């Protein structure tokens, strides 16, 4: 440790302002603070500071994402083996999935962090940690077969247009990871919807005339619902139980299928206080409220008649409610506002699912829409506080 510290100290002047590589100041600083918590001491105000920093907060979110990632990796192998009737061991499935998912993660981080470093450099700021989380979330909400160049483009779009133009982490209006997904959705719709993209190898199989197993369909349950099939089936045509949807061994975006893995993440986030339980709870409440309401009027045999709680395990609902609606920057920031915001995210997600025939998944659009309105919700909550204060003021 001492040797490394000495080395860092030794080369520091070269990278400081005025040094030979002074223009790389931000980059050096990012690596230095990655290795060492710096020796900066408090200059003003409180002399002592909590040992938590943004790096740690982001680390917690990444840890919370791990169960969903791990399950997703296994599930990529599992779904592949089912689709092609392959007899794979657990290890083989994991290894297969790992090899498919790893490039997505690498591309996401390399492109995103690259842009973050460059923009920090241009501004002369320290490199912000925000992308550590976005960079992990983005691959998890993509179909496994998404071409890497599209992913790279989406990440670049999300970081530049979604975040840096507003001034970087903490200043953005929309969740950057969802911006990436929305970009793919609107720019390359065929890459993110349909029946052939959720399972590794299906697209290629069509081209190469490879054989899937008999009666195979790559449709996700949400995809089936959009086509009016409400007796959800697995890819091989067996009935798909609620429990299986909860566990998540079904096709879908890499990290979003397993509600149980996501719930483990939710527990970590809530316990550490990193994400708001109020948003998660009200989001579920909103979905159930609309779901049950619609259930009451629905004709039997339609998607609207599917019991409301199915929405919680379908598609990206759980992942969105736990990891994306709760983004502290883009969600409502007042405690009352969080209840309203979360409720509307859940309600809108289900409304979009049920009443928008064009696109079966409503979570992404619901969160992005509510991101837009979160400041408005907060405005009214804060306005209430202001009104109270004006009311009791002695002079006008």
């Amino acid at each position, binding site marked *: *440790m001492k040797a490394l510290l000495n080395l860092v100290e030794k080369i520091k002047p070269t990278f400081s302002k005025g040094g030979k590589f002074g223009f790389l100041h931000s980059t050096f600083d990012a690596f230095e603070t990655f290795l060492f918590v710096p020796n900066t001491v408090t200059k003003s105000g409180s002399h002592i500071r909590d040992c*938590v920093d943004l790096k740690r907060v982001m680390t917690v979110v990444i840890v919370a994402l791990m169960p969903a990632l791990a399950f997703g990796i296994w599930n990529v192998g599992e779904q592949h083996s089912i689709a092609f009737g392959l007899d794979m061991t657990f290890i083989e499935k994991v290894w297969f999935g790992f090899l498919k998912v790893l490039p997505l993660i690498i591309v996401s981080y390399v492109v995103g962090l690259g842009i973050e470093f460059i923009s920090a450099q241009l501004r002369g700021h320290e490199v912000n940690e925000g992308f550590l989380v976005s960079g992990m979330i983005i691959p998890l909400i993509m179909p496994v077969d998404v071409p890497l160049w599209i992913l790279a483009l989406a990440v670049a779009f999300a970081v530049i247009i979604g975040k840096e133009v507003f001034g970087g982490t903490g200043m953005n209006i929309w969740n950057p990871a969802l911006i990436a997904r929305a970009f793919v959705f609107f720019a390359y719709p065929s890459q993110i919807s349909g029946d052939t993209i959720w399972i590794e190898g299906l697209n290629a199989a069509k081209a190469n005339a490879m054989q899937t197993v008999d009666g195979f369909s790559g449709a996700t349950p949400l995809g089936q619902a959009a086509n009016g099939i409400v007796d959800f089936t697995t890819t091989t045509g067996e009935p798909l139980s609620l429990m299986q949807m909860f566990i998540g061994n079904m096709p879908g975006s890499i990290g979003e299928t397993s509600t149980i893995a996501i719930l483990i993440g939710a527990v970590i986030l809530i316990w550490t206080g990193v994400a708001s339980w109020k948003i998660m709870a009200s989001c579920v409440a909103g979905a159930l409220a609309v779901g049950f309401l619609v259930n009451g009027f629905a004709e039997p045999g339609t998607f609207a008649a599917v019991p409301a709680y199915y929405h919680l395990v379908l598609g990206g609902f759980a992942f969105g409610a736990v990891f994306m609606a709760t983004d502290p920057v883009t969600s409502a920031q007042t405690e009352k506002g969080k209840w309203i915001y979360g409720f509307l995210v859940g309600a809108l997600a289900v409304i979009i699912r049920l009443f928008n025939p064009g696109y079966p998944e409503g979570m992404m659009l619901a969160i992005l829409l509510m991101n837009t309105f979160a400041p408005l919700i907060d405005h009214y909550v804060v306005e209430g506080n202001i009104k109270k204060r004006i009311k009791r003021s002695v002079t006008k």
Partner: protein
Amino acid sequence: MLKNIQLHKGLDIPVKGAAELKIEKSIVSDVVSVKPTNFKNLTPKLLVREGDEVKAGSILFVDKYRPEIGFASPVSGTVQSVVRGDKRKLLEVRVQASKTTDYIKFNVPAVGKATAEEIKKVLLESGLWAAIKQRPYGIVANPADKPRAIFVSGFDSAPLAPDYNFTLKDEASNLQVAVDVLNKLTEGGLFVGVNGKNASASPFSKLQNVKLYGFTGAHPAGNVGVQINNIAPINKGEIVWTIDPIFMVAIGKLFTQGVYDVTRTIAVAGNRVEKPCYVTCVPGCQIKDLDFLVSKKEVEIFDQETGCRYISGNVLTGTNVGAEGSLDFYSNMVTVISEGNYYEMFGWVKPMRFGKFSFSKSYFSWLTPGKKYKVDTNLNGGQRAFVVSDVYGKVLPMDIYPVYLLKAILAEDIDKMEQLGIYEVIEEDFALCEYVCPSKIDIQDIISKGIATMIKEMA
């Protein structure tokens, strides 16, 4: 009947080095500093020159714009030097103390019959007026104002803060005189907040003519601003006054003995103090005189040698005065902790950081609830934009939206600042927000800037 107010937000930072309830020594300083910088927004006008003889209670400098407010020497002796900084800014007046303290004898009226004007006159003459602060802004009160009420916090809940139940236990009679004096200055009465957990042990609980409130909860329950906000918030157009109990003792002495005697019992605490304890001294006494209490052992953190930080006040709101500095006018303690100028390899990645406390559960200090920590001044990260926006509200038991107020200040939006409650807060109320901030934003600085803007714009 004691009204108890339970506060649910806040944080008691478990800091090691609390003072043992024992008065170790009475400090007699050779040199005492009186510092205009202790008084927010003060432009001082110097009245003495080097070599002048002064007594305890002699005015050394006055407020240039309110010349009736004077600032006195706590000891008698000769003016040793006048220290100035950049642009000849007056930094401190150093008084070489004489062997025995020679007090000016003030003519004090009998408290029962005195009018408000007579009382103000004595307080102003003696220099004790500076002890009374006003809200909004936390500056020395204006004698021409009629405050809505006067508020006193009867306990200090800050980390390692002195226990007033101990330091003021023999001062009940002086406190009672001060209560009667202060009651003359307002029609709204004198509100005292005591620690709800042991209210009966407080010297305030036995006093007459006070409106007593109990406060239970973690720090900042003992902050007078938090207490005001929970009893009756300050409204636009109103002024309330606040005073610390240590100055009420001085008011008691002034009106019984006719002297300016601000001697106080302070805590000397922190992990670099060998045996944390209490001492009696006057404000302006030199930190050097307390040095015998500070441990001489070298301290290494992660194999890197660290020095001491000498703080006049507590770790959250005090001033870094350095080893050559002196006790601030309003301080009730001196804290000595380690400087944090060390590197910690992969500090933020380590699953456990045993030596460090965190309010956030992202570290595991919640597993050891009773543990006290050796704190240091490391920032523990780099400065960022506001990201985790809901953490501040958890440690601020006031009806205020902290991030919105801070952003209004940064945007210099006067109307918004006013609407969001700038009149109700001063820096110390936001100290815990600053402590817990994962973005390492200097929040007290921002509040300070906001208050300065308001003073300028509202003048």
